[in-house]
């Protein structure tokens, strides 16, 4: 009797375990390490459908050597602690071969987990300067560094060709939140304003999430600035701008990417937002046609417009998928190592390489025996030795209650 039960249990275990084993063999898991809940849940919501669209494209064309790409979510909640926990889960429990994400907010918690385990990351969302020169093997990003963003702000603010009707600003003050995603801008902005001949008169670091910034604004105004460069969350930025308005400030404002959207104008009111400048990541003008095609395709796929980080995600997922495919076609075992080792071969420029702009194009070229140079929506995606890219920036200006692109600063103007 006991023997029968034991046999039945073993049979049940085998019956349950075999499909799971077979499933594991059929799938390649990629982690989406992003905030899906909390204040920054919109980042995960923007990235996920684009990543899924590319995963579907890969899977519908036969997958990677017959294996489907499956996306596994790890919720960083936009914090360091939750980022650490989510990275541990994706890396050690789910066993993902690569990661899309994280944001700058969680990078400090994720960093050691991925480096210790040799997990390749292609992040579309982390501009933090902490990544600028950290690693040569596993870390890549399809979003430009905040160092370049900060330089773009200083360049635009001090050069009339990038401004609306304003004279170049000469006495800027920098107000920056004490959080990883914001403080990352501090040094590049200070250094760049120095380089462009308009040193920052004062840098005021503020604690995010305070009810009032009256005192910080008072300190900023004591330098009599003609421009305040504001790096903060949208709600803190709204409080600071309102406090400055109440204190009689009528100089200029320059805000970063998180604020350069219609919601921010609604939050601060059109009256207060009128005339402010904002930084925006833009697609390479050379890939305008590709961007239009992508937007149309995404709208058809997801039934909504592409949001911030959408184009960066498209490039990140294509890079990962093409690197996996190249490894597979070369007979390499699909692993974290082979993924990391194949990222540069599918993105580096080369005389004999076929330029491709999508997974499908890349697949055709690779299967025909060619080497490829993936060029994406954000730009050429030529990683430097630390996995960074360069990209142009848009300078936007609020006119009649709406953001208007005033100028594009090409990547080579920021060197």
């Amino acid at each position: 009797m006991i023997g029968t039960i034991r046999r039945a249990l073993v049979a049940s275990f085998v019956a349950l375990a075999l499909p799971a084993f077979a499933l594991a063999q059929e799938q390649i898991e990629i982690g989406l390490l992003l905030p899906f809940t909390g204040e920054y849940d919109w980042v995960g919501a923007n990235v996920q459908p684009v990543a899924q669209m590319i995963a579907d494209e890969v899977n519908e064309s036969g997958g990677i050597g017959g294996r489907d790409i499956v996306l596994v979510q790890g919720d960083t909640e936009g914090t360091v602690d939750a980022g650490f926990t989510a990275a541990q889960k994706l890396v050690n429990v789910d066993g993902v071969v690569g990661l899309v994400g994280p944001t700058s907010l969680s990078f400090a918690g994720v960093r050691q987990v991925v480096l210790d385990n040799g997990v390749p990351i292609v992040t579309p969302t982390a501009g933090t300067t902490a990544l600028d020169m950290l690693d040569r093997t596993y870390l890549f990003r399809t979003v430009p560094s905040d160092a370049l963003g900060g330089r773009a702000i200083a360049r635009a603010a001090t050069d009339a060709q990038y401004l609306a009707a304003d004279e170049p600003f000469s006495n800027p003050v920098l107000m920056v939140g004490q959080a990883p995603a914001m403080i990352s801008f501090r040094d590049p902005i200070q250094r760049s304003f120095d380089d462009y001949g308009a040193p920052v008169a004062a840098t005021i670091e503020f604690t995010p999430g305070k009810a009032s910034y009256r005192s910080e604004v008072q300190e900023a105004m004591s330098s009599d600035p003609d421009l305040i460069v504001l790096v903060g969350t949208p709600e803190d930025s709204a409080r600071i701008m309102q406090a400055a308005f109440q204190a009689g400030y009528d100089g200029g404002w320059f805000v970063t990417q998180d604020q350069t959207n219609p919601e921010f104008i609604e939050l601060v009111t059109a009256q207060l937002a009128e005339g402010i400048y904002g930084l925006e990541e833009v697609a390479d003008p050379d890939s305008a046609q590709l961007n239009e095609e992508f937007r149309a395709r995404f709208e058809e796929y997801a039934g909504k417009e592409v949001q911030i980080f959408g184009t960066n995600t498209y490039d990140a997922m294509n890079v990962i998928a093409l690197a996996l495919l190249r490894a597979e076609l070369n007979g390499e075992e699909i692993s974290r190592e082979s993924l990391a080792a194949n990222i540069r071969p599918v993105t580096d420029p080369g005389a004999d390489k076929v330029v491709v702009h999508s997974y499908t194009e890349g697949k055709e070229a690779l299967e025909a025996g060619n080497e490829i140079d993936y060029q994406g929506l954000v730009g050429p995606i030529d990683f430097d030795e630390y996995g960074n890219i360069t990209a142009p920036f848009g300078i936007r200006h609020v006119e009649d209650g709406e953001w208007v692109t005033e100028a594009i600063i090409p990547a080579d103007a920021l060197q």
Partner: protein
Amino acid sequence: MTIFLQTLVFGLATGAVISLGAVGLSLSYGVTRFINFSYGELLTLGAYFTVLAVSLGMGLPLAVIVATLVVGAIGTLLAKVFFDPLMNRGFLPLLVTSVGLAFVLQNLVRMLFGSTPIRFPLPLMRPWDLGELFIPKIPVLVIVVALGAMLAIHLMLHFSDVGKMMRATSDNPDLARASGIFTGRVLSATWFVSSLIAALGGVLLAITQIALQPVMGWSFLLVVFAAVLLGGIGSPYGAMLGALLVGLGIEFGTTYVSADYGQAFAFLILLLVLLLRPRGIMGGAA
């Protein structure tokens, strides 16, 4: 001198916002004898419901009245369902229930209104410019509204039957019951009034903070507790005084010591007062 006067105005305004929350919390403590950790969420609801009412086409003053009345009713209902059945079960079940309820309400707000900050619909106002001195209009508006509310609370406590019954129950529940005061009705009235005051406090908080967030009430609760303890727990007038001191402490500390440690000054004052007077400034008096 200019900075001193401006700081004074902001300190009074901060104290005014805290005072509404503190008086409401103190009133409910006086009658129920437990600290309601979900009280902060009533502030949040007050602010969000005002924005909702405005978006439905009401003028701001009417929206505030409607929102505070609705939150008063919600607060009473929540207390009837979650707190009243536990009233005789001791301190701990009530405490844990109120913390749990706080998280439920907070996430409900997040679910209904989203996590994206929403602007409180108050028009921009330039300050009054008096030569070197500028007086911002919003803090003055907040002070005036809070003073009006304080006066109304004072009149209710001293001249209305329900107010007198609240004070009597707060002083001595057994004696109040023996005197024929129906404490169940007093309890309901207390929940309603304290929730209504919380909602108004939430509106003032939203006016000063500009952007509404689901955690706004919860984050503010600690400062409200400080004011309540400083004034002497259970004493509405002590809460007003405590709130004033905390508000001034935060703003003067922020201006003259460091902008990063605003709330720390509130607790420094609290510690100093409690060292000298453990029951708070007006401890025990109602």
